[in-house]
């Protein structure tokens, strides 16, 4: 029997959730016995080379590229998991959500106190740059997400338990202190 295939990515996130995944310590050795990684920063595979069983998504969608990556994950992964507060509710990047994106861009590139030498008042608009979305979207408001693991970052034990339960088909054991939003 072939090993389940896992893919991971960080959208509008800080890679803290990936760090937390690495925080399972020596269990990481068990994990690579249990699963095979496909597209993921962990092994630096940039493009999907096959269909995957599990996709772990860190971060919400703050720009068009995030959306495309997330949609790509949805297409390639059987099960998609929002990992961490940013994926679940936008997290810190979503703190801009109450402010119109126009104001945010103007603050960042034109009016902000650290802006210098932008005399032509240009907001970067090269076609290569991903386009900012009107707000940061939680992943499940863009595509269907199957599971959600909260935390900032989710505790390593939570990620581990969830993965093992999914792979082995056993029930998740989640002691009270493992599921936290902070």
């Amino acid at each position, binding site marked *: 029997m072939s090993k389940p295939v896992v893919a991971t990515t960080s959208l509008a996130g800080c890679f803290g959730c990936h760090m937390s995944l690495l925080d399972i310590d020596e269990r990481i050795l068990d994990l690579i016995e249990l699963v095979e990684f496909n597209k993921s920063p962990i092994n630096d595979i940039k493009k999907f080379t096959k269909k995957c069983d599990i996709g772990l998504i860190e971060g919400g969608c703050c720009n*068009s590229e995030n*959306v*495309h990556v997330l949609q790509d994950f949805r297409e390639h992964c059987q099960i998609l998991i929002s990992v961490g507060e940013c994926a679940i509710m936008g997290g810190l990047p979503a703190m801009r959500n109450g402010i*119109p*994106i*126009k104001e945010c*861009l*103007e603050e960042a590139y034109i009016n902000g106190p650290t802006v210098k030498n932008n005399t032509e008042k240009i*907001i*970067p*608009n090269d*076609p290569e740059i991903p*386009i*900012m*979305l*009107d*707000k940061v*979207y939680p992943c*499940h*408001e*863009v*595509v*269907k997400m199957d599971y959600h693991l909260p935390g900032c970052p989710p505790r390593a034990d939570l990620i581990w338990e969830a993965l093992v339960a999914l792979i082995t088909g056993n029930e998740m054991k989640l002691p009270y202190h493992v599921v936290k939003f902070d």
Partner: protein
Amino acid sequence: MKNFTQKTIEKYHHDKTRLMDILIAIQSESGHISPENVTQIANELNMSEVDVEQTISFYHFFSMKPTGKYSIYLNNSVVANMMGRADTAAAFEKEAGITFGEVTPDGLIGLFETACIGMNDQEPAAIINNRIFTRLTSFRAKEIIRDIKDGKKIEEMFSASFGDGANRNNLVKSVVTNNIRKIGPVLDPDYKVGEAIRKIIRMKPEEVISEVKHSNLRGRGGAGFPTGLKWEFCRNAIGKKKYIFCNADEGEPGTFKDRVILTELPRLLIEGMAVAAYTVEASEGILYIRYEYKYLEEYLEKILEEARMKNYLGKDIMGKKGFNFDIRIQFGAGAYVCGEESALIESAEGKRGEPRDRPPFPVEKGYLGMPTVVNNVETLCSVVKVMLNGGDWYRSFGTSESTGTKLLSISGDCRNPGVYEVSWGFSVHDMLEMVGTTGNVQAVQVGGPSGSLIGSDEFNRTLGYEDLATGGSLIIFGEKRDLLNDVVVNFMDFFIEESCGSCSTCRILPNVLKKKLEKILEGRGVEQDITDIETWGKFLKASRCGLGQTAANPILTSIKNFRHLYESKVQTRKEYDTGFDLQQAVKEACEASGREPNI
């Protein structure tokens, strides 16, 4: 010299429970309540400023910013839209040079939207400086703005003759028409004023209660609580003083029958309040009227004065020693939820119109903590006829469960909108024949937005507590109306804005449900969205008051009775759709940075 605010506060004896009256006076005098006014009121009434502001900011017709020398409040109800409000609104905006929610730079004209003002039978209608303008057109809107700019007084701006009946009274002088189309025992003007009082003072209060109980009269506001029982509870409650409230806050969109009673039969109403006062031994009555009917104030004050002269009110009424009772008018200031009896009491105490937790019920602890009866206008009028003719006579009308008659406010797609008094048990089908309709009727909204939207397969149902219980608002929709876009969305907006905001459920859920509805209407919905609305809508049942509990009814009853409309709009090929639209999501950023959405 004392300023107006000071004089007003003194007029109400520095009584903070009269805060509504103080605020209404200042708002009417200066078109807004300034921060300086707030400070002065707070100091004089020994309140904090935020406490004064929490009342001000609750009510639609109070404003802390100037609302213009002429403030135009154009009704935005469903029926107003059906009768051509859009043209009128556009004309107002064009002529005044501002959009709704704004005041002209010179401070002359303010344009505002407002929920149903009780004129559904003569829409589009507006309130301008407390006077009503009905049957508006774009032409009339132009005329009105021109008159304002010419400096005309409000009373010089009417271009038609005044309405019928007491609308022509010198103290009313209004273009509003009563449109009474069918008279029954309650609306029958052929009765002798004061006769019921003369009769009951020869009876024991318990006997009066027993007769009302025998009549099986139930509250006509919509909830249908047995009137006799309510009186008995209040009579048996312990309190130094007791109060009779008349609820004339009819805010349910589509209802206007109480306005007609207030105009044509105010003496009947006063007599009903006196009867209630006699039975529960109340010494004070409060007639709580929605702000929209402020144009009737002087007229009603005069009728009350006349009743005092004739000793229908006052001391030892009609010679009955110890029967002392008087009535004062309390105006609201624009809040649908104040129609809920405990919210109405809170409002009359000068506070935000937030419903109270029950128990205790108002009959035990009501106005100022005293036992209080709150009855609807129509209920109190019915009582007089019950006492004049007896419970048995009253029971001869209607059905066994629903005795007597009901005043219906009928509007929408029909030939003769207006007020009709019919016996309970009347079918929707008969109602439609009675008012005359052209073309096929697609749906009838029974009981206003908080009631149900029913289709033709249910027109054989009957009005009454055993089937379609209603406060009397009936809105007819012809076959060409877009029920979801034009009716359900409008009703949901109404509930969203009218929530008092206290219960989490009612404050948050209606908006969540409306967004779901919009998703469906935009073609992005799936079957699951319909199911979600049905499941989520049930959570509103945990709200404190009737407003919250019924706030999902426009969507829920339309899904129940017009499911095909929803199903025709959801995507059948998809099981899941988040509704996310990338094109839409990048639009703003593209505009801000001046680039093509190359996604």
